[in-house]
């Protein structure tokens, strides 16, 4: 114990002041000082403010706590970019109050979800995720369909954020429900950066006919992969839903391969980033097996 009468540990007020200064140093350097620098407030040229419908959707995204399971920032790491797309840029988040980067990926990152799937995919997946991924742990959000958008709240939000809007955009909200809003929000996520495909298959490198043709286990492997990734859009028994049924497909084997590998903008994502050629050919074999002879 200090015997000194003038010790800091005997002067409560002085001690409190010194403690406050001590914690304010790091606070200033890492929090206040950066705030004064332009690099903390960048804005991409293509970035547009939220529309009233998108903002309503964002508010719902926040209300439901989606960020407890979904991040919104793609790291500049090989696997992240492969899986989700181009890494996140600081200038993409200019209108995000607060940021919704999140800290946990129980579900996938959503920073590049906008435009990856057609609207229908989101409507159906939000209502019943297990129809797309049988063992998904995402809760069902079908109740959003029955809820009207809180227009007064949305307008108040637009005003606070200083976002200009047209009266007809507000009028439009009256005919929309919360599901429409959240889908509109999701579909604009990450769209200020052009879509970047890391792996795509050059058609000149693809065989005309499936190299797995006639291999008995290829169909079974194709069916296994189909059940993991494809049932949502093409149906449990490939009867078709958002995407077509396979029974009467006119595509050649090579066309099927390229479609699965590279996708079709706005309709179907490509799978070359997460399926080897062998897996894609197995899927082609499965589709072939369903084709009416």
């Amino acid at each position: 114990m200090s015997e000194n009468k003038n010790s800091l540990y005997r002067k409560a007020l002085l001690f409190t002041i010194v403690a406050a200064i001590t914690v304010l140093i790091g606070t200033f350097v890492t929090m206040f000082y950066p705030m004064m620098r332009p690099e903390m407030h960048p804005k991409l040229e293509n970035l547009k403010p939220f529309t009233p419908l998108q903002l309503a959707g964002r508010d719902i995204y926040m209300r439901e706590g989606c960020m407890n399971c979904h991040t919104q920032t793609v790291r500049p790491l090989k696997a992240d970019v492969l899986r989700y797309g181009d890494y996140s840029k600081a200038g993409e988040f200019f209108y995000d109050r607060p940021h919704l980067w999140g800290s946990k990926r129980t579900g996938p990152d959503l920073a590049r979800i906008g435009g990856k799937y057609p609207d229908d995919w989101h409507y159906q997946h939000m209502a019943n995720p297990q129809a797309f991924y049988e063992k998904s742990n995402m809760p069902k959000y079908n109740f959003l369909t029955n809820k009207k958008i809180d227009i007064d709240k949305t307008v108040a939000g637009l005003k606070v954020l200083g976002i200009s809007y047209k009266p007809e955009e507000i009028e439009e909200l009256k005919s929309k429900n919360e599901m429409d809003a959240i889908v509109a929000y999701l579909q604009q996520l990450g769209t200020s950066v052009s879509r970047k495909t890391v792996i795509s298959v050059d058609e000149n490198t693809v065989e005309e006919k499936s190299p797995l043709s006639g291999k008995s286990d290829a169909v079974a492997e194709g069916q296994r992969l189909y059940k993991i990734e494809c049932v949502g859009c093409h149906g449990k028994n490939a009867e078709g839903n958002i995407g077509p049924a396979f029974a009467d497909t006119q595509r050649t084997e090579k066309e099927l391969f390229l479609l699965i590998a590279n996708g079709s903008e706005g309709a179907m994502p490509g799978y070359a980033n997460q399926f080897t050629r062998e897996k894609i050919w197995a899927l082609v074999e499965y589709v072939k097996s369903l084709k009416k002879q």
Partner: protein
Amino acid sequence: MNEYQYDYQTVKGFIVSCLFWGVIGLVIGLLISAQMWNPNFNFGEYFSFGRLRTVHTNVLAYGLGIGAEFGIFYYLVIRLTKRPLLFPKLARFHLWLFNVGIALAAWTLFMGYSQNLEYAEFEWPIDIAVVILWVIFAINVMGTIFKRKEEELYISLWYIIATIVTVAILYIVNNLSVPATLFKSYHLFAGVNSANVEWWYGHNAVGFLFTTPILAMFYYFLPKSTGLPIYSHRLSIISFWSLIFAYLWTGAHHLVYTPLPDWIQTLGIAFTLFLIAPSWGSVVNGYFTVESDWSVMKNKYLTKFFIAGITFYGLQTIQGPSQGIRVISSLIHYTDWVPGHVHMGTMGWVTMVICASIYYIIPHIYKTEIYSVKLANIHFWIVLIGQLMFSITMWITGIQQGAMWKMTNPDGSLKYTFIETVTANYPYWQMRTIAGIIFVIGMLFFLYNVFMTIQKGKKELAAKLAAVNA
């Protein structure tokens, strides 16, 4: 021993309240742990994971954690200043406002009124209530410290002062937002800046709500319950100042590989690594305090709670900084490793020390002995097993997740689809639920023991009064 007119009513009130909120928070924790492996445990909009996870973290952090801190600090401050609280009635009001506040706050989170800032989810009206609560607490505690009868400020008081000052700064700055409606506001800060402010807050909320207050308890109750003086006063001084200095620089380690400018990330990582030193200063101080007579581990039942607690603090403060390093972050960030890390801190360190402090305080206030040392020992071992099982399963599954996300085929494509990386966690998540149940059972032993001690104290007092009157 001086017997002042100590106001123990408020202390008791906070302890009972924090245990009540603790049970609610733990039960919700069990529910959301089951939701992780079976979506059928989500019940409609109010009981879905997205809302409940926030209720779980906030009710336990604010209801159990801070509730206990309020109660225990009121106890510590009057003991260490050798005088009654400056405003006992204000403290009573503080207790009521606290309970009303937590109930309201929990309700708003069920309703989905959330700022979506982690550990600062409360919307602006609740934020105002929290600030009022904190100011009331600060006036009383700081006032009592300023008017103290004991000249020397004991180590615990340093940590209490640092907690009061820093939490006020953190909470007010991060919660600055512009209200749009009664329960909806937008953060004053946008994008990258919003993230930087939030994690400056978020990390230091851990530092100044779950580190410094618990150290305040540790430095008081370890010597009290062992009868051994703190090993080194000088080490306490060095650890204290370097801890509170370095902590505020480290928030950006939560934002590694995000679009936050690299220099802020690197600075955050560097200070995070430095933070090992002051953290271990307290760990070493704790060990060497008991080093002078390890027999207290056997003879004094509370010793093992504090030693286990400081051990997990030590492990936590090694693991945390290593997670900040870029290469490790790239593997485990966003995975279940992180909840494993967090729960080692909350279950192994924070709750362990809070429970031990309450075991010390309750018999002292009721002038009796603990109801059952045996039950306290059973409580100790059960929560220890539950917590270890929880953390270890989460570390394993976190590494698995991180690895599965990264793995590629020879042709450069990803080896696993996302859903495969999710379902691979299910067995571990189920084990985590079991671990949670074990932990909660341990906590029920604790509650029972505390409740019975209170009853015992009341009975003994009644008997004494009867004897006097007879």
